[in-house]
């Protein structure tokens, strides 16, 4: 099952505006590896990860159909 990837702020500058899907990743660590390979600049930018709007604090299983968001440091207000 594919997971949907969305990104914001400076991370979106790196990954581009389009939403896209990644197939065949078992967990977030594996997903990050795939993304860093595709977008080397990601390694230089700080971000945290939310799976279905919940911020994760460690490697998290992806059983598909989830939305994974890459969130750089917030700067609202």
């Amino acid at each position, binding site marked *: 099952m594919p997971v949907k990837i*969305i990104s*914001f*702020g*400076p991370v979106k500058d790196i990954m581009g505006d389009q939403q896209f899907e990644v197939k065949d990743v078992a967990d977030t660590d594996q997903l990050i590896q795939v993304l860093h390979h595709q977008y080397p600049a990601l390694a230089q930018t700080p971000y945290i990860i*939310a799976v279905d*709007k919940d911020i994760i604090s460690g490697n998290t299983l992806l059983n598909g159909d989830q939305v994974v*968001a890459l*969130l*750089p*440091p*917030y*700067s*609202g*207000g």
Partner: protein
Amino acid sequence: MKNIFKQGAISAAFIAESIEKHKSKMNIGGHSIFLGQVRADKINDKEVMAIEYSAYEDMALEKMHLIREGIFEKYELTCLHVYHSLGQVKAGEISLFVFASSVHRKAAIDACEEIVERIKSELPVWGKEIFDNQSYQWKENSK
């Protein structure tokens, strides 16, 4: 879930309207309001002309809902309103409007301050500082 986002700047007229609406709530003794205004900061000789705000809206609204619940549990508020801009807000314009009301002033003042801090640190919102030469940089919130 209450939507807090407004396209563009928050006008003084909108703030006045919000204040006016509380006239009928005759148990309110104090309102504490915070307004965030876009600064024309100078960074390496370029001046910030506007900030363009974007957000992970669904997540931000869920988070704001939780912040509201926490605040209402902690403080005796009569009401609480929060508005945050999305899109471009020019320097000098207002991008954040927090409005807390209570019977006795202390609750409104303390709640308003805490909400502002939590909005800045917990809401997935990003500000892009747009310079007068059209270049930009991503804003970083000071603590």
